[in-house]
């Protein structure tokens, strides 16, 4: 793999589909369900596409206004009795959604199961902590690119030796790395050991938007804006050559490799971009919290992150946004249940998975490259989100 062959001009999605192994009956049934689900989705999105542009834009604008005013209006079904809605949105939901978007690149788009994603989240948070409080006093804005780059570099460093592994072996190795990063933070004096880092610098005040300890709304506005930016950045990426290569790798890595996709390089890219977004999320979290310690980056968090992606619908960006919201927001919404809220959250996870096994908002079959026909063989293949990349089948 020393020299990368040129990318094929044909859509890699198709290649992957055709070259895939024969579809088992079980997969076909699931695929049909998926196809049915995505057909529904397609109807909706077609209806959306048929709306006049003005209507579409004003609806989107209304949605944005609704979202941006959430901390002020606190509508009853959304408010979180027992804790502060704006604080929850800005300090928990925003980082989780950014994380879900980033992890979706790795898990949903490229099909690499990463159980150590919290490591990148920690790298972002600690980079900000080290640069604005522990060892320097750099401004937040300057730290923003540094955090992203540092996380990206760590992603490449961890990805390079491990990305040859497949499926669950990759999962356990990444889990190990995530845990090693936390344990090192706990141990290294340079990173504040178990005591963590205090007094982390907040973003700079912009006009009426102040980022003091009690200005929780501004953090939410900032976070929402970052989410929108990240969303469109990743959306562009998904529809690019890189995104198509990821899809090919996800669908069948061996086939993709045979067809000339430099799989290792693209997997590394997925890892690096995922890590960068994860680091950004960690930075947002640390900037809001002002304090971080290794306890905030345990393995359970990695698992919740994965849950966000899978719950929402891996590979579908609106889906993972919803997944991220559900995973971070639901336990806070359940606060009226007091200490039993995590028990109910667990039960809710099981129930949601039973009723929406494709995710709350499943991936739409083939995005824009597929004409809106009745389910075809491609749909069936596409609907199989088996993340093994062809090493072995789901239930085969």
């Amino acid at each position, binding site marked *: 793999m020393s020299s990368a062959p040129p990318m094929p001009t044909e859509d890699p999605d198709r290649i992957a589909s055709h070259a895939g192994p024969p579809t088992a009956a079980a997969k076909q049934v699931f695929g049909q369900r998926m196809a049915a689900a995505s057909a529904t989705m397609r109807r909706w999105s077609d209806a959306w596409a048929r709306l006049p542009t003005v209507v579409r834009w004003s609806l989107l604008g209304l949605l944005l206004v609704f979202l941006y005013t959430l901390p002020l209006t606190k509508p009853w079904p959304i408010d979180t009795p027992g804790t502060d809605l704006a604080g929850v949105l800005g300090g928990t939901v925003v980082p989780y959604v950014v994380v879900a978007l980033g992890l979706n690149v790795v898990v949903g788009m490229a099909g690499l199961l990463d159980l150590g994603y919290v490591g990148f989240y920690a790298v972002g948070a600690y980079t900000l902590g080290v640069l604005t409080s522990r060892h320097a006093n750099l401004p937040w804005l300057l730290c923003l690119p540094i955090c992203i780059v540092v996380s990206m570099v760590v992603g490449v460093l961890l990805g390079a030796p491990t990305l040859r592994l497949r499926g669950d072996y990759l999962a356990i190795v990444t889990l190990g790395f995530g845990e090693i990063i936390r344990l090192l933070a706990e141990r290294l004096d340079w990173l504040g050991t178990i005591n963590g880092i205090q007094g982390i610098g907040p973003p700079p005040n912009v006009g009426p938007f102040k980022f003091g300890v009690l200005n929780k709304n501004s953090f939410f506005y900032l976070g929402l804006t970052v989410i929108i930016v990240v969303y469109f950045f990743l959306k562009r990426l998904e529809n690019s050559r890189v995104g198509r290569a990821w899809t090919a790798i996800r669908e069948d890595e061996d086939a993709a490799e045979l067809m000339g996709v430099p799989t290792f390089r693209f997997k590394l890219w997925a890892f690096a971009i995922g890590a960068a977004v994860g680091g950004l999320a960690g930075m947002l979290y640390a900037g809001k919290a002002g304090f971080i310690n290794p306890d905030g980056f345990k393995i359970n968090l990695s698992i919740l992150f994965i849950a966000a992606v899978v719950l929402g619908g891996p590979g579908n960006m609106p889906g993972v946004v919803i997944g991220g919201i559900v995973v971070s927001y639901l336990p806070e919404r359940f606060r009226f249940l007091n200490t039993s809220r995590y028990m109910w959250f667990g039960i809710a996870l099981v129930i949601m998975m039973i009723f929406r096994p494709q*995710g709350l908002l499943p991936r739409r079959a083939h995005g824009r490259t597929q004409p809106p026909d009745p389910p075809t063989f491609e749909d069936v293949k596409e609907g199989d989100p088996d993340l093994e990349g062809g090493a072995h089948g789901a239930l085969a």
Partner: protein
Amino acid sequence: MTFSNFIEQFWPSTINGLVLGSIYALIALGYTLVYGVLRLINFANSEVFMLSAFGSFWALQILGVPYRLGNGDDPYKTGLALVGTLGFMMLVSMVVGGTVAMGLERIAYRPLRKRHAPRLVFLISAIGASFAMSEAVGEFGPRGRQEYGIQRVLQKRKVFSIFSADVRNDYIIVVVGALLMMTVLVLFVNRTRIGRGIRAVAQDMETARLMGVNVDRVILITFLVGGLMAGGAAFLYEIYNGTARNTLGFELGVKAFTAAVLGGIGNIKGALLGGIVLGIIENWGTAIFQSNQKMGSVVAFSVLVLVLMFRPTGLLGEALGRSKA
């Protein structure tokens, strides 16, 4: 790094690692069996273990062994009474483990299988189920989220020494018990009709179904067996350690899962080897790094990463009646 410590503590570290590793190995079986058959990570196996540990506790209450007395001695038993009590504890633990594991399959996994859900979804469902079980014990247990100290019926004694290391009677029970259970399991999988069914389903579910194997039943039995092993592990853990709480499962579960992968997930002998290697490496790592147990974990994970880099399917490779492509 202090290698002198490591050399001085080599034998005790190894013996303790062996004991702990045997328990890891038994829990790892719950992951490995299910993985071999369904190719999914049964994350909730750790909570099966946790509930089984409470099963041991419950068994003593059924027998009316007095609860911790505050002062004075534990209600030690000897001879037949001891064997009977331990046997009953083990039985209850295993029944609890088996029941919970089967319930888990019926409630959290079977509906997903019927819907042909992708594999990752099982992971999330399993995580949900673990949250629910662990939190339910914390919420409704008689002592809530506090630590439960289990009454001790076996008086721990030193039996003999290997070099500088003491070998206690509970060590022997744990290691021998784990090996026995493993042996029975291997015989069961290789020699019985049901075992053949398990191997058949592991090899090719569709074909097995076409050949007349009742796949649902085989899967249920696989979970049952995994649960029994977790129950046995929980019993041995209680003999060795004697405490339980609602968060007990997670940490041990991660270690056991790591052990399963280290040995080669889906491979029964691999679980045994992986468990023991992990237990020993962890203790060695701790001894090398100023007796810091957390560094032991770092070393254990690092070894796992290194092993997988050179043997991408674990020490023994994956196999449950199958040769992998």
